[in-house]
């Protein structure tokens, strides 16, 4: 116990263990990786939390991915992934240990959970960050998109603690699994006075959908009205197949039935964050561009060099979208041969 008392006085960076959809959603591991980098700069420990029932596999995973300490509350009474219950537990733990920074993955769950935790602690929270850094004063600099990603804001929480952020999945790369890593596991029993959840889960059905495929894809080939026809739009699927990517579409394309609703990339559809985005014949309406702010590298193809999409791109190709797509397919086949 003496050892952990010492550790309590040391600064710490916490990552909330959001393990639902573990195999598709690696955001907790990505945050452990970033927390490890940041912790090195401020001399802090990296801690993770795991709440739920029969959750030991995640405890081991988090240690193998960089956590020094894992706080575990494992109880059949909290097996449901309940925002309010998990928020109460998080607040209870944060009040005991006073971490410097608390990071939460910007999943649907995380983006409801973190605001409640921050409000209960009366501290600051930055939403859906695409960058985290430490400044010369040791403050966490949180970079978050605004106005559909057309602007980025750098936000800090100067005085209140912890400094909290939800972080967009896919921004950071996880540290490779280290089987030799060791960490401290602190198992806590469910506090007696934990409030009963006021929101009851009636049912939860896992949806087998392509949404994660598009949202997690490293390459997305996206097409707009500039592709010209359904027949030509289908060429994008061939290109995506060759590249091991997914096909996305803009709203006019979905309205024209060249692609299904589930391929819609936009504010009302999927938000994507590929390493490479190829945008064919897309003008760049804000409701679309808002959903591609996570793309690392954008290649836009459009006959009109003045299109917004062309301005947002890393590489703007002024050419016919379909012709370029066909030429890329041909060239890729050459490159991928042998």
């Amino acid at each position: 116990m003496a050892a952990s008392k010492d550790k309590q006085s040391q600064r710490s960076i916490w990552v909330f263990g959001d393990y639902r959809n573990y195999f598709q959603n690696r955001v907790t591991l990505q945050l452990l990786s970033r927390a490890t980098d940041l912790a090195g700069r401020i001399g802090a420990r990296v801690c993770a939390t795991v709440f739920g029932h029969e959750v030991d596999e995640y405890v081991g995973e988090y240690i193998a991915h960089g956590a020094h300490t894992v706080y575990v509350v494992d109880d059949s009474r909290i097996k449901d992934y309940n925002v309010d219950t998990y928020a109460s537990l998080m607040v209870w733990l944060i009040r005991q240990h006073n971490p410097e920074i608390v990071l939460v993955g910007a999943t649907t769950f995380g983006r409801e959970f973190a605001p409640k935790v921050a409000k209960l602690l009366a501290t600051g929270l930055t939403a859906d960050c695409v960058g985290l850094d430490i400044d010369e004063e040791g403050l966490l600099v949180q970079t978050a998109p605004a106005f559909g990603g057309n602007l980025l804001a750098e936000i800090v929480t100067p005085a209140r603690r912890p400094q909290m952020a939800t972080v967009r999945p896919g921004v950071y790369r996880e540290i490779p699994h280290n089987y030799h890593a060791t960490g401290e596991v602190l198992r806590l029993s469910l506090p007696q006075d934990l409030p009963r959840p006021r929101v009851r889960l009636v049912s939860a059905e896992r949806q087998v959908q392509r949404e994660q495929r598009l949202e997690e894809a490293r390459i997305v080939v996206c097409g707009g009205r500039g592709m010209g026809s359904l027949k030509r739009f289908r060429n994008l699927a061939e290109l995506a197949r060759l590249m091991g990517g997914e096909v996305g579409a803009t709203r006019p394309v979905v309205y024209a039935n060249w692609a299904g609703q589930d391929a819609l990339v936009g504010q009302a559809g999927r938000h994507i964050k590929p390493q490479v985005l190829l945008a064919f014949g897309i003008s760049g309406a804000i409701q679309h561009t808002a959903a591609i702010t996570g793309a690392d590298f954008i290649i836009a193809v459009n006959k009109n060099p003045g299109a917004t999409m062309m301005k947002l791109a890393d590489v703007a190709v002024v050419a016919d979208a379909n012709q370029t797509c066909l030429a890329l397919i041909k060239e890729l086949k050459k490159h991928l041969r042998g």
Partner: protein
Amino acid sequence: MNLVVCIKQVPAVSELPWDPQSGTLKRNLAEGMMNPACRHALEAALRLKEIHGGYITAISMGPPAAAEILHEALALGADKAVLLSDPKLAGGDTLATSYTLGRAIYKLCPDFDLVLCGCHTSDSETAQVGPQLCVELDIPGVANVEHLQVRGRTLIMRRLADNFLETLEMDLPGLVTVTTKQYLPRYASLGGLNEAFQSSEVRTLTAADLDLDGDKVGVAGSATRIRAVYAPQAAKENVVLKGAVKDIVEELFNRFGDRIAGAIGKDLNGRQ
């Protein structure tokens, strides 16, 4: 039902009046509109009122010009509209905003059954005010709701969360944030809008009217500070390629082949 809808005015622009020289947003040039998700939240309230009867109070916080969206809410069927407008409230983060809205709701409609908010705004996109407002009001709440059904004093909600289609329930009073997937909003007729702007009344309240704690509102009450705002695309090189398609594609592979190969996860040097 006693329904409260929180709505926000956001810039109505498809391209932002962004000044790359000064690095600021020309907000004064941007026309305002009701935030899309707030419009869906209002629609959900209007449909609940149609089924169960009741009274809708629309509340907004913002500059005096935000009264516009409240007039529109009245034209669409809201019964009362209140604007919280005070320079002291300006610049608040979600912590301060949820406090302000919470206090206003308690003051204006203490017997509310349900508070509805949009799931996120199109300008700051935090999606935090709704969840923080239910902590402020100390009521149960659910974010990103797609379908609502009232049965007695229980609200049954459906939503998609991280690949799970969830059905949830809570006892009222409660709070929901509504997505833009369902509750396709109605639009007010031009005549209705005109009438609303001429005859309807939007009540404006200041921080003093609401007995707000000055340390909890606006910039003073905010835990976060914005240090810098910039356009991300300014950092991009924006290479322009033009000419014959064949040449372009070749150049693309020569210059950016590594980048593409990295994403594909395959070596692209199999070229003969």
